[in-house]
């Protein structure tokens, strides 16, 4: 790879890189007591990129890597970049970006690849078995995944990198049925960590909490609808952080003026209680990365500080265009995918209220719990965040259990109404798509947050 990059001598190409990725791992799933899937994967691919003007060409393959094949790929990438560059309006100069030389192998206490498959099966079966606490649970399911992504990257400014990312995940789902009423609950724990992370989960209480959640939801009520006081748990506040402020802070959306936050640097966009961060360098979070897909180290970026909008998440290109340092947020799903500005671990920072104080201080409202899905609105600054469940709050106490609901509104209005922020952070790991695809591992999080927003559920 290094020789091929060093041999590149096309004067139209101002930057190029080659990235090789190998993915190995184990996935298993248990449904209603039976091991329904057990798989181990081994895939590898390489992608070459070239920049001409302001346009990129890229070519990828899963064929065996040879000098000849890499030359062929880079040549193809350059050819495609030149075709696109006929529409180019300017040149992007990446020649002064920092270069990095390092080999970073993740330190784990227990490498999942060295843990016997039998032990992983036993754990998944135990988790699933712990869900069976009631005859009304018609479908119980557990899932275990470990993966190791190993990367090699070289580029024309001199970066020579090798690193890996090891992640582990455990998940349970319980579906309850009573007559024609069906409800479900789920739990998921994931981390950039080895098998020690999975061992640290109390699988019985983890599963039983989910099973009890599904049973309880059978007698839940329809949520109220309209504008009201809402307390978001850390999972939902993290979802709002991620979907709205997070995606709109991705600098590729800013350099083209699509983001509603484009001209907001230094502007008070929320109450002083609101601080939001993206941090790819946190220890052991699902979205933590030693380097992004362009070889920039993962780092911490303060997006909102005490309500004032501060910073964006950058690729090499957006950093150069905006005259700032790259932040390590250039990420690709895999060797087949494009690189663009993405989040890592994104969260609202904690405040000084205890969780109980926030509930007790709320006369009428809804406490929304556990995220199901969300969708960004980078242009309009709206939010759709769907929660699994919640509680009606009356005179400072949680009362009726409510079934799934969606919160929405304009985030710049919502953030200004935030008047209470909890002192405990909660993180959830998962995957994030941009637009409707390009999924990467991330986490989002936050404390309990209280504000005014619109809510509704079917």
């Amino acid at each position, binding site marked *: 790879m290094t020789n091929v990059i060093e041999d590149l001598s096309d004067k139209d190409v101002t930057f190029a890189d080659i990235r090789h990725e*190998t993915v190995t791992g184990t996935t298993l799933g248990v449904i209603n007591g039976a091991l329904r899937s057990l798989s181990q994967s081994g895939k590898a691919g390489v992608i070459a990129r070239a920049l001409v003007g302001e346009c990129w060409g*890229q070519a990828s393959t899963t064929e065996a890597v040879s000098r000849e094949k890499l030359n062929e790929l880079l040549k193809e990438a350059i050819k495609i970049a030149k075709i696109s560059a006929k*529409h180019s309006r300017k040149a992007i100069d990446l020649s002064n970006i920092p270069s990095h030389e390092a080999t970073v192998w993740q330190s784990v206490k227990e490498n999942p690849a060295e843990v016997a498959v039998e032990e992983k099966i036993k754990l998944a079966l135990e988790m699933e078995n712990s869900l069976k606490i009631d005859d009304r649970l018609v479908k119980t399911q557990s899932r275990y995944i470990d993966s190791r992504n190993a990367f090699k990257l070289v580029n024309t400014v001199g970066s020579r990198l090798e690193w890996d990312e090891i992640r582990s995940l455990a998940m349970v789902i319980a579906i309850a049925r009573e007559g024609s009423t069906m409800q479900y609950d789920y739990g998921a724990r994931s981390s950039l960590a080895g098998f020690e992370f999975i061992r640290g989960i109390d699988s019985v209480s983890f599963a039983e909490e989910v099973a009890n959640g599904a049973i309880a939801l059978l007698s839940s009520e329809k949520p109220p609808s309209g504008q009201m006081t809402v307390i978001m748990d850390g999972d939902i506040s993290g979802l709002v952080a991620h979907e709205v402020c997070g995606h709109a802070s991705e600098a590729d959306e800013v350099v083209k003026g699509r983001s509603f936050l484009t001209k907001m640097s230094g502007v008070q966009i929320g109450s002083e209680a609101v601080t939001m961060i993206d941090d790819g360098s946190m220890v052991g979070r699902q979205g933590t990365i030693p380097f992004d897909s362009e070889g920039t180290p993962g780092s911490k970026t303060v997006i909102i500080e005490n309500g004032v909008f501060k910073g964006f998440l950058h690729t090499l290109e957006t950093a150069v265009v905006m005259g700032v340092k790259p932040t390590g947020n250039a990420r690709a799903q895999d060797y087949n995918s494009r690189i663009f500005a993405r989040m890592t671990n994104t969260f609202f920072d904690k405040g000084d209220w205890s969780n109980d104080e926030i509930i007790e201080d709320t006369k009428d409202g809804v406490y929304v719990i556990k995220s199901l899905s969300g969708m960004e609105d980078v242009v*309009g600054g709206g939010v759709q965040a769907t929660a699994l469940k919640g509680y009606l709050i009356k005179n400072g106490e949680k009362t009726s259990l409510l079934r799934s609901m969606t919160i929405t509104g304009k985030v710049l209005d919502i953030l200004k109404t935030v008047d209470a922020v909890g002192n405990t952070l909660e993180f959830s790991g998962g995957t994030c798509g941009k637009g409707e695809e390009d999924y990467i591992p991330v986490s989002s999080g936050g404390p309990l947050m209280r504000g005014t927003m*619109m809510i509704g559920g079917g």
Partner: protein
Amino acid sequence: MNLTDVANKLVTLSEKTGASQAEAFVTIVKTASVYIDNDIPKIGSLQSEIGAGLKYIMGKKIGFTSSTLATESVQDVVDRAMSIAKVSSVDPKFVSLPDPKKASGSPDMFFDKRTANIANEDLIGKAMELVDATKSKIVTVPNGSLRASSVEFHVENSLGVDVGSKSTIVFGFFTAKSEDSGKVGEGVQRCWSREIDTIDFTKIGEKLQSKAVQVLEAEAFKGKWEDTIAVLAPSEGSEILGTLIGSNSNAENVNTGSSAWTDTLGGSVASDTLTVTDNGRSERGLMSAIVDDEGNPTQSTTLIKDGILKSYYFDNYTALQSDVSSTGNGFRRNDREANGRFAVQAGCRSSSLEVAPGTKSLDDIIGEIDRGIYIEHFAWPIVDAMSGAFSNEVRNARLIEKGELTKQVKYLLWVGNLLESVKGEMMIGSDLEIHSRRIMPTIAFPGTEIVGQ
């Protein structure tokens, strides 16, 4: 690489090393794509991926492994599959892999040579045709992607299945931003086809521009309308109705008791205006092939006829549990992302869900509604298929009052229960469109609510 040879080696070696049954799925995917960024082709891309998935069975113990094969040999893949099958636990419900069955038609009957071989330059030209039709003084195209994939696969198993098929998929996703007098808005358009030359990119661009501009007029919806008829454009209705029907007709969900329509065969589940077919041989379907990804022949299965639930759909595993024949619904392939599917085990999934079109135009449907809403775009339409509950943020919609479209609205939720709504007086349009795995028209859903600030 010859897919048939690789599949044969994987199965043969598995049998030699002690597998009671083995199944190999080998695929090659080639994709050309272009990403639009701020009105220009920002990234052009060419991808080639070869991969194999191997199911290695020892009695009722199953191990699955996948590989891109460049960094390991066929023997390595078989050894890994065998090692995990040995330590796997018994799946008591597993019966057998599929027996060979005659699949009619040519393996390339859903393959379009022009789409498979399109050059990046031509693809960029198509995308820019759309961009040029969208742009105006107040409208830009900040994001877009267009890709054309060819997918060829071969599946072989120990019982004599030895068959393949190939197809093509085109997918496009574009957003337009409008900005005028301090107001901003966004329009979204997607396109899907098996044949790139059937897509009218100028027409899509014009529609995208129109959507982006009309959103500028939107005002926040205030209050709540109960018992409201919501007319959903095909892109939105197909997603939400497709999820409901696709999930509840899925034999895997039926057999595990997590379908709302378990034990409902022959019963009324929807309005008598609704007829839905799962068609693995749909002329326009992106999943269409002569066989599914387990090698079973594909077919057309009527799921709902005039509102009555007629059938579920089955892959090989669920069919053998239910003592019926597979309906050819064992899939690994995906309608949108062609890469990486060799690493996924076949499961029971819908092929193309086709709603039988009605006779009404969009104007006819709107003309019959006293009070309702016409929704062209949600943040992302979702429904809990088990309970039927939904609550979706509306991003582009107009109110319907006394048979006419009136005010453009924003900042509202559409809420209700879809299992209940589809039992009401649904109106089915005549304007079939393909979206993902669904071919559906404009549909009016009664008995729902819209909630504003």
